[in-house]
């Protein structure tokens, strides 16, 4: 079983501070980390490998600095790492990113693809499902637990919903998007770090993937998303707290407020 985990290197939002004057994020000097959900995906893959055998490969699309994210994945126990990086890939939106990563996955080969649910810097939750669509394989998003792999080719997954969950049997090759709850990531091993830097991170550039790529679906030009405007969300004023009311009085007070604002 060949498991491939797709990861993204993101700024550590815990370390991000706001510029007090412009109210925008200060990104300078902010450390980069592996996106949390993706790291759960790595852990889930490593657990599957320990239970059922196979290999775990990790793929990251990004600039050369993303190398350290891949080394971390290797130090956690992944077998091989691929950095998907090329000038032509710059400026890709989720569609183009999914198109490029799909090409990389076709190049590498896979039975089970795991991505994180969404990245903390963009929060789109689109790339995983888009990869599955591009590759034409079944997908289970919001995976909360992987119960089993049956007959060597069927994954039994619990998918979280807002008000319920589904238990789904899905035939490999397939793609799962991992929630942070899927697995608590292990620490890198101190010795694993030494090994990680002895291994090669394989670079997949434009030329390596050109046979699998659709040229009009990559980079800025291949990205249908247009950023119309970006702005800093203004903090809302503090709410009003109505205290010491009986349930009936509370209902009345709320209705009065809604009525006052012409909401109802």
């Amino acid at each position: 079983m060949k498991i491939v985990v797709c990861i993204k290197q993101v700024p550590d939002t815990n370390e991000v501070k706001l510029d007090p004057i412009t109210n925008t994020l200060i990104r300078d000097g902010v450390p980069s980390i592996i996106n949390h959900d993706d790291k759960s995906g790595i852990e889930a893959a490593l657990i599957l490998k320990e239970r059922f055998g196979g290999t775990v490969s990790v793929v990251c699309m990004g600039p050369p600095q993303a190398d350290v994210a891949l080394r971390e994945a290797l130090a956690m126990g992944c077998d091989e790492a691929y950095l998907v990086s090329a000038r032509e890939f710059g400026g890709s939106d989720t569609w183009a990113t999914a198109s490029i990563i799909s090409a990389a996955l076709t190049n590498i080969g896979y039975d089970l693809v795991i991505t994180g649910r969404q990245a903390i810097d963009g929060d789109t939750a689109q790339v995983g499902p888009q990869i599955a669509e591009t590759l034409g394989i079944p997908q289970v998003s919001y995976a909360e637990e992987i119960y089993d792999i049956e007959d060597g080719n069927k994954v039994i997954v619990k998918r979280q919903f807002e008000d319920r969950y589904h238990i789904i049997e899905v035939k490999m090759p397939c793609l799962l998007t991992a929630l942070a709850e899927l697995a608590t990531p292990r620490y890198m091993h101190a010795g694993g770090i030494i090994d990680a830097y002895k291994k090669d991170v394989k670079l997949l550039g434009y030329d390596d993937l050109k046979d699998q790529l659709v040229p009009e679906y990559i980079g800025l030009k291949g990205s249908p998303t247009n950023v119309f405007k970006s702005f800093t969300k203004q903090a809302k004023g503090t709410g009003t707290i109505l205290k010491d009311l009986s349930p009936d009085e509370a209902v009345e007070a709320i209705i009065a407020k809604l009525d006052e604002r012409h909401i109802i």
Partner: protein
Amino acid sequence: MDFKLNKTHLLQQEMFRRFAENEVKPLAEEMDETEIYNMELLAKMHKVGLMGIPYSKEYGGVGGDYLGYSLAMEEISKHDGSSGITISVHTSLACSCVDGFGTEEQKQMWLRPMVDGSKTGCYGLTEPNAGSDAAGQQTKAVLDGDHYIINGTKIFTTNSGFADTFVMFAMTDKSAGTKGISCFVMDKSTPGLTVGPNIKRMGIRAAQNCEVSYENVRVPVSQRIGKEGAGFKIAMKALDGGRIGIAAQSVGIAQGALNEAIKYVKERKQFGKRISSFQNTQFKIAELQTQIDAARLLTWRAAVSKDDHENFAQNAAMAKLFASEMVNDVCRAAVQLMGGYGYCREYPVERALRDAKITEIYEGTSEVMKMVIAGSMKIF
């Protein structure tokens, strides 16, 4: 000359930092209060390789070096001096005796489980009447056929409260002085070996530092490390390496305390201003950080000289002498910067100040460090 850590060391440092913040920091206060080391934490430290950093993968170790080990000691000690000494005694004292002087068979039997994450080691040299004068060992080992019979008492044996593997020293030939001491390794279950309660101390209270008595303890000759009479050399060699760990521990405790004080002065307001805006505060912090960095560089130099197989004893002694005195100054100043709150147990600088003192005492006092340095300089 390159003062930058390489990529491997940087990622190790990051991993040690995350581990320390997530696993050590939340437990440190409670462990200090209860004077009990958390065994789950010990198991976790073994699991991520923190207990076998400078040892070969051939024996199940991490395959790292003393620089990496120093980084670990600093990051862990930033939050807990007790965890620092637990790692240090195991790594640079217990393991190093077997690694440096054991036979291949002994390494497989005793070193492997200590560095692959399954067993914890301790090191017994100090006795009630043999401290800085370690040559004055009263514990005796008498050869009886193919066994030694060991009798005596060791004190302040760090880790002995939970250790599986005991490395210890005993006099095999009193008339030969320092050349009459031998080194032994044994399992905690060896009959006649008894560990007393954790000795009540001012600092590093969670470390398990007990009296260990050896009463007619029979160990086979195959458990003697090195030649008969080589024990003192083995003990001193181990302490040379251990001092790098204590220097790094001192740097960690100091940086941890200063970080807390910096956080505090940026929030605390007096006289209508943040106290970080006072020049006295700024100058004090500038001085303290400079002292910490100087100690860190001495520590790294000592570690690299050991990794490069140079004669590192003087570098290690200088690093420990400077770093251990520095950490006491820094912690005292950190408490002062935080005023009454710094003195409260609620804030970790109070514990840091108590933990700091021992660094000037164990693994050779500051006075012994000066003897080592002056000796290396051939000042007689």
